[in-house]
């Protein structure tokens, strides 16, 4: 890190988190209320709060910062509330409806539900115009582009006041000329409109995915453009040395002009930075296989890094819209502190996805909420401090929590309040465990091989229980856990994805040289873009992936490989990687069967220097931080046990606590179940280990040091 500071600003639904790191490695978190309708206002307010608390003025920080990084939800909010730009689509005649046909599918889980509505069309049918043109699956032209059709579409769009246009033609990825010519015409006739070209934004085979991705992008581009202009301008006036970098859903940073053009990349940025933070936290121990869970008030986000790399998803439905571009896989679940416990039509206890949110909030907040929530259960179980959360600023009412649980759950089920509370805790955990399986088992990974990392304010109460359920024996909880995603953003690199279609069977020299040419071409473009952004060659790294399948299969699996020259003999290396991945995912492979590639991608990364690390002072032993005891419940029978409570602020490096115990940090509470040992590491991270007694671990460590 070259300069005095690095500033990260991550806008969330309720709060915008500010992370200020300095070159000595000190990291501070500040929070300001988000202002979704005037997004730059929250930035101003937050910088004012920092000034009040630290005396550092906004221009001091910004002009002395090596980087200012922003994760924004403006795109996400526009997509959720359907308040994007008025958008038109120009498509191949006969294929205008693919985004409304949506492959003929209704989402699972609603099969017989008569009230589940169709997805809202971002481009209604009257703004979707077909033009005469057609390219075939071998890339040859079947019907040339009818330019008058394009002009007519533009006239229609002008009459209707369209602000943004998406162009997406069938097989344009193999022959982009028609799209490019249509784009010229649109630029001439609609100079004020924003333009998204399918084959440029997402050059991959699959018309529906490409068209849908282009539409989402076109729908958001004017919004992001206005936002980026405002933020870039504001930071320039504060004397920023570098343009602001925006955090993307692919886990990397990008320049504002990139985000304004490729807005779809900015859609789900928040939780996508968790893997970076996880890698940073695990680095002192060389941990590279980490699952991060982030539980807030209403949702639970899961991300996974394997061998230091985050899971990536492509071609997924996001908020009911198909999006192709690579995004960090974030499994989101409606399970948070506010999730409501209820009894379903069959008589089974369920948790969520309905949430009490922050208004009225859990029953124990005493703000009128009457339904029992996860937070109420945690309070009854004794895990949370009844004197209140956030350092006592939010007092909790145990009686209200008990009443809600008794009325809605315990009495109907004929069990005690304590047993019901533990049941709620167990079920919400189990729901989360099933979701964790989706990022691990369903991706071919055994969760027991991973470390569990805790993010978000509400997760600490569940973290050892989750680990126990998953068979995970090691857990990390950073003192920064409640703002971990914002922290992850300032640890991120600049990253762009370059893609190409490659429908080719893995046979023969021609296929090999075609793939090799494609990859080297993509990577040359990537190096050029990063060089223009000031990255030296040595700072640039490349990851390749190929979407492959056995000939005849309909779905591909994505195989990651290192860059190497693809010659005919190297094709076997690609095939071997595919067979291995297929077996990992689906229990079998077919080494004799022919393999084909559909799409390829290179992810190009420009490394950004990391900030320094602080070192905590050595502790004086955990006893000095003991605050007293509280009755807590750690068993299904609901029997309470007197359990020690520690003040995290008084603990130092090397201090150890064995469960059952609770550590109270200002913004989070860490419940350590029986059988777990917690040790505070000098980097400010609690390391929780299952199945070793404090004394034994110490002896083992001493023995290791002596050896």
């Amino acid at each position, binding site marked *: 890190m070259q300069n005095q500071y690095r500033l990260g600003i991550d806008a969330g639904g309720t709060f915008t988190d500010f992370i200020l790191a300095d070159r000595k490695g000190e990291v501070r978190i500040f929070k300001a209320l988000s202002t979704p309708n005037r997004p730059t206002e929250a930035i101003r307010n937050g910088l004012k709060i920092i000034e009040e608390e630290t005396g550092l003025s906004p221009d001091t920080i910004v002009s002395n910062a090596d980087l200012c990084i922003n994760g924004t939800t403006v795109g996400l909010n526009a997509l959720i509330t359907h308040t994007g730009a008025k958008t038109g689509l120009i498509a191949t005649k006969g294929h205008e409806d693919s985004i409304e046909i949506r492959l*003929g599918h209704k989402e699972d889980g609603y099969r017989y539900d008569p009230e589940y509505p169709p997805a809202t069309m971002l481009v209604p049918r009257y703004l979707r115009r077909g033009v005469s043109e057609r390219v075939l*699956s071998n890339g040859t032209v079947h019907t040339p582009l009818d330019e008058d059709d394009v002009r007519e579409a533009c006239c229609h769009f002008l009459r209707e006041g369209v602000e943004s246009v998406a162009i997406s033609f069938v097989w344009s990825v193999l022959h982009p000329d028609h799209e490019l010519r249509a784009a010229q015409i649109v630029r001439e006739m609609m100079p004020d409109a924003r333009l998204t070209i399918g084959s440029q934004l997402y050059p991959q085979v699959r018309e529906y995915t490409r068209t849908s991705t282009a539409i989402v992008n076109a729908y958001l581009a004017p919004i992001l453009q206005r936002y980026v202009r405002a933020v870039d301008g504001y930071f320039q006036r504060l004397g920023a040395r570098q343009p602001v970098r925006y955090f993307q859903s692919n886990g990397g940073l990008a320049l504002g002009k990139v985000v304004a053009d490729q807005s779809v990349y900015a859609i789900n940025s928040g939780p996508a930075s968790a893997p970076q933070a996880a890698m940073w936290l695990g680095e002192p121990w060389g941990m590279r296989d980490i699952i991060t869970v982030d539980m807030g008030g209403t949702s639970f986000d899961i991300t996974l890094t394997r061998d230091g790399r985050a899971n990536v998803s492509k071609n997924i439905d996001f908020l009911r819209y198909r999006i192709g571009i690579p995004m960090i896989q974030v499994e989101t679940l409606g399970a948070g502190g506010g999730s409501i416990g209820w009894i379903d039509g*069959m008589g*089974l206890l369920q948790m969520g996805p309905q949430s009490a949110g922050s208004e009225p909030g859990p029953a124990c907040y005493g703000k009128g909420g009457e339904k029992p929530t996860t937070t109420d259960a945690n309070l009854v179980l004794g895990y949370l401090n009844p004197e209140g959360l956030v350092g006592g600023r939010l007092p909790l009412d145990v009686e209200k929590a008990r009443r809600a649980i008794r009325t809605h759950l315990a009495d109907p089920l004929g069990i005690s309040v304590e047993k019901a509370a533990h049941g709620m805790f167990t079920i919400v955990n189990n729901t989360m465990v*099933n979701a964790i*399986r989706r990022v691990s088992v369903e991706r071919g990974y055994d969760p027991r091989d991973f470390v569990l990392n805790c993010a978000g304010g509400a997760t600490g109460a569940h973290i050892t229980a989750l680990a126990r359920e998953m068979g995970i024996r090691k857990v990390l909880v950073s003192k920064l856990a409640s703002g971990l995603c914002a922290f992850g953003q300032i640890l991120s690199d600049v990253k762009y994805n370059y893609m190409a279609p490659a429908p080719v069977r893995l046979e023969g020299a021609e296929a090999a040289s075609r793939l090799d040419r494609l990859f080297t071409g993509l990577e040359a473009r990537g190096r050029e873009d990063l060089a223009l952004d000031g990255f030296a060659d040595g700072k640039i790294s490349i990851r390749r992936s190929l979407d492959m399948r056995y000939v005849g299969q309909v779905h591909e699996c994505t195989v990651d490989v290192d860059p190497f020259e693809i010659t005919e003999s190297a094709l076997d290396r690609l095939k071997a990687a595919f067979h291995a991945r297929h077996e990992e995912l689906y229990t079998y492979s*077919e080494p004799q069967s022919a393999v084909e590639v559909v799409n390829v991608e290179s992810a190009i990364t420009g490394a950004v220097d990391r900030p320094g690390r602080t070192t905590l002072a050595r502790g004086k032993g955990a006893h000095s931080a003991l605050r007293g005891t509280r009755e807590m419940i750690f068993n299904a029978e609901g029997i309470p046990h007197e359990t020690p409570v520690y003040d995290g602020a008084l603990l130092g490096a090397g201090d150890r606590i064995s469960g059952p115990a609770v550590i109270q940090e200002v913004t989070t509470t860490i419940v350590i179940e029986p059988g777990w040992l917690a040790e505070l590491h000098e980097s400010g991270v609690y390391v929780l280990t299952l199945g070793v007694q404090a004394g034994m671990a110490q002896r083992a460590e001493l023995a290791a040091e002596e050896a």
Partner: protein
Amino acid sequence: MKKRNVDPITLSVVRGVLETAQREMTLTLEQTARSSVFNLAHDYSTALFNHTPEMILQGQDIPIHLGSLIPAMKSVARYFDGDIHEGDLILHNDPAYGGSHIIDTCMYMPVFYQGELVFWTVCKGHLTDIGGPVPAGYNPNAKEIFAEGLRIPPVKIWDRGKPRKDVMNLLLTNMRARRDQEGDFNALIGACQVGARALIRMMDKYGRQVVQDCIAELLDMAEAHMRKLIAGVPDGTYSGTAILEDAGHGFGDFEITATVTIAGDNCHIAVNSPPQVPYFINSYEGNSHSGVYLGLMMFAQLPPPYNEGLYRCVTTDMGPKGTLCNAQSPAPHMNCTTTPMETLTDAVRLAFEQAAPAKVSASWGHANGCNIAGWDTRHDEEYVTMVLASIISGAGATATQDGWHACGPECCFGALTSGDIEMLEHSYPIIIHRYSLMEDSGGAGRHRGGSGTCWEVEPLDSPMTLITFGEGRRIPAMGAAGARSEMVETKVGRLEVTRGGETRIITENVIETIRPGERAANKNPGGGGYGNPFERDIARVLQDVRDGLVSVEGARRDYGVVIADPASLTVDEAETARLRAA
């Protein structure tokens, strides 16, 4: 609920694990299968059975398979009674043993725990071919099941862990596109193994007895749930009759009648259908269960999970053996999962509509699709597949909203996906000229039925065999709650073949050869409307006109809305009021 002393918390957890196991089976099938019918159409089912064998969890995948795995599993277990061992794997497709149609092949894996049979993991998928004279199995000319393809009674393909290569070779030798079929068998086996792994893990954790007690409880709870719904319907006998149109067999239209008798919390559904015919639309008893249960679901509208407990209070009588809905060998049957299943479902739905008028939605468009086959000169190999995009019809409107566009057919209820057109053109030598919604295809109603679709194809460079199946080319999807359509001709399906500038409309099931330069457009019907169309909000009619979903003529004829100026969409209010009052 206390009788088994089941802990309510463990119960919820076990339920979650079962769903996860089923989900992982589904994912394995979907991601690895070759047959686009099964991995895009989701024309497969995964299910878990206990040792009795009672179905403890049905994947929610597709209504076609809602009921038919239940009798099939029981048949298979009975056949091998006393001879079921760890490491066995059983394959079956024959409707005489509870199968639906022979192109749906089922894989059954007994799951043993500490030496005892505890569970079965089962999956079933629609292959691309099952041998026989016509590629893809649908043979409108078949007079007997023997002319449709290979019947596979329950047969072990693994015997105590040893794969029986000779048996597999016998089966595969009788099928087209052997590579694809072999891949699909692998996918079915993989899915069964994935499910077994999850069940064993659960028993390791909670103990076999606890798991079995919880499952018994889940079955009881589902039973209680369905009984409660049935008890809410006034006692009585309700009946519904739907017309099965003659799609080329020459015997004329048939009536299928369902009679639903509600007595307290029990429900009996009796089916009356004409004698079986030498045409591929006969439904054996296993398949008819699916049709009846779908009609029941259109009333019950239950969210997942589904298990056999739901049907304990439901008894069925499919009519005498040898009838259309209770066929017996040698009746040809390949079309049965759509035709007559959808008409049977309609009959049951209509009966329930009388029993619970506010609840039951309109009918969905029936399947009216095609299979294609030919030679792929690009790779010098044969191709054969059902075209999912050719059966995407409109959904029926409900009491609260318009029907979904492009979501059918009724027998799939939105479960299938039609596949990306570029991937289809990559896999098969075809050009898809059109895949779109169709004006005036949704049934008129206060809530409009969803739009049907048109799928238009041309072979790339060599002749293509196109085989059609289904019906719904003369009779549109039935509305509910007083819906009616005047413009019927746009609301039904059909095949349009264009040769030398001349278009021929085909409403029967045929085998056609389409050459490069010629086009076949397969049109699928829209869904039925709900409620009186003259009560539809005028603004919503205008919105549909602007979106090209309803024509100016359709607005007048179907909705009584007269548009004075199509450009500005101004309404002739006097004339509209007059039409709507009439």
